[in-house]
């Protein structure tokens, strides 16, 4: 499967983009709405005009039309042709490429079997659920054995449970087939569960390319740091391992963190995953990772409040809570509070 390189790519949205997606990698492209993620996918697919160069395995793609690039493309909306049933949708690429009918039918059945969708074979898209549509679209993209898979927020319109299931399925299929894949998302959780590496695109420019962990602990600039949520970063020393947890000392406070078999020297804590309460009894049990502190400042946005708390050891932590919660708990600057760090919101690094 090819390595994809973009060299000095610019157009009406993108500005001098240089990117290298490795062979067989699942690369997640992150960025806010309007940052140019979809346009970048379309550049790789050859669907929009651009200046610069796109290379597959070092071979320039300029002048190669989309139908000859061996690409599987899943857009965010309108994923299926509404006038074709499931079998016709999946077999579309084989038909337009003039493959023999019997071979095409065999391939369609093979893909339907692989995705466990044989019972949907003759249904029209209007009679499919959102998850089923996405799986049919994936099967259709895989039907002609693409070497590059371009996925444009394919799961964003689905319910959380289906999203989780399809992420897993998608990742397994991508690994099994070894297809080079560029996956557009604006969801960090999605990026974390799927990516080999991630890239942050903002204002048409690539801000950083690295693993999500590297990005979390060493954001290249404020744009990246703001996008991934300005996490709380603590330096620590972890000496004890307790099963799946590690006991770490952070400036005199003992914090339990998820242990992934690697040394831990830094902890990143998502501000949204820090519980804050004025009474210790309001903190959910057990009393682990619970600390006392004092509110230093409160900054409000349209619906959320960023509450900065100084712990007894002088460490500053930021918690993000709903504005309503902030009011109902009577949180104010100078007030003593208790905080609990949820394991879910922690990432570790060496």
């Amino acid at each position: 499967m090819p390595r994809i390189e973009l060299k000095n790519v610019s157009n009406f949205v993108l500005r001098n983009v240089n990117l290298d997606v490795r062979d067989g990698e699942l690369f997640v492209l992150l960025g806010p709405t309007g940052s140019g993620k979809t346009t970048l996918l379309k550049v790789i697919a050859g669907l929009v005009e651009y200046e610069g160069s796109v290379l597959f395995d070092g071979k320039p793609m300029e002048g190669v039309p989309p139908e000859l690039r061996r690409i599987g493309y899943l857009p965010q909306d309108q994923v299926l042709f509404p006038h074709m049933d499931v079998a016709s949708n999946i077999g579309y690429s084989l038909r337009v490429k003039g493959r023999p009918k019997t071979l095409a039918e065999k391939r369609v059945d093979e893909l339907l079997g692989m995705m466990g969708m044989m019972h949907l074979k003759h249904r029209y898209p209007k009679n499919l659920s959102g998850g089923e549509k996405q799986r049919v679209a994936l099967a259709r993209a895989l039907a002609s054995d693409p070497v590059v898979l371009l996925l444009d927020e394919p799961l964003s319109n689905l319910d959380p449970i289906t999203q989780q299931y399809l992420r897993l399925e998608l990742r397994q299929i991508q690994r099994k087939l070894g297809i080079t894949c560029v996956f557009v998302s604006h969801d960090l959780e999605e990026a974390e569960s799927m990516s080999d590496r991630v890239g942050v695109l903002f204002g048409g420019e690539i801000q950083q390319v690295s693993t999500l962990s590297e990005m979390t602990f060493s954001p290249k600039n404020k744009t990246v740091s703001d996008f991934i949520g300005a996490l709380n970063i603590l330096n620590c020393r972890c000496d004890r391992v307790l099963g799946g947890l590690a006991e770490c000392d952070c400036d005199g406070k003992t914090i339990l963190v998820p242990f992934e078999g690697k040394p831990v020297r830094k902890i990143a804590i998502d501000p949204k995953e820090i519980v804050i309460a004025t009474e210790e009894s309001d903190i959910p049990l057990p009393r682990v990772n619970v600390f006392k502190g004092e509110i230093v400042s409160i900054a409000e946005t349209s619906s959320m409040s960023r509450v900065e708390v100084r712990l007894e050891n002088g460490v500053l932590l930021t918690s993000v809570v709903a504005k309503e919660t902030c009011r109902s708990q009577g949180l104010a600057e100078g007030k003593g509070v208790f905080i609990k760090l949820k394991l879910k919101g922690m990432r570790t690094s060496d």
Partner: protein
Amino acid sequence: MKPRDWAWIAPISLLLATWEAVARTGAFPPYLFPPFSRVLVTAYLLTANGVLIGNFASSLARVLVGFALGSLAGLGMGILMGYNDAVNKAFHPIFSILMPIPAVGWLPLLILWIGIGEALPITIVFLCSFFPLLYNTSTGIREVHRDCIDVARTLGASKREVLKTVLLPLALPSIFTGLRLEAGMAWRVIIAAEMVAIPSGIGALLVASESLLRVDVIMLCLMVLSVMCLIFEKALLFLERRCVRWK
């Protein structure tokens, strides 16, 4: 057929019965408001002597030829304009000026340009059919979601295959709407053209009947016109349902 498919019979029967009853009260002179039964007898007599069939066949042939030519031309031009931005930019302003002109409005000009003859009503029906289909086809194609086209291209379809397998099938509902609209309109304009300038056809029979005070024949002609509009519309609706099953 389901019971609801026959639901139209009761109100129509009631209308005809009321018509018959009112006409037979003698409140109006029979030559101005003949009963329905009189119109039926006239229908039989004019069918038997070939007058109705002859005039009807003339009108039907003109509608079919004009409708077919206008639809094909509108479809072709609509496809070009819907698919190609340059063609659309070049022709859209011109057609935008011409489209609002009622088909019958062309009549005086066409009488001077092509004279009174078979070509005249056919040209009028052509014009009446061409513009709606042109508009509906180009709009139908242009409204296909861009992602559908992009996906088809990445799946290996050439531009021509995208047109054939994605754009045209997805534009079909809009094309059929245009066809249904123009089918009824074609009958209306052919009658108008025949009334003004052509000596044969249902329209000409209407004008002749008016001067002879044959209200029964006028009513018969109007009923034929109404039935033909309905038949055309239902036939196209049937065809649309067969072709656009996915909708």
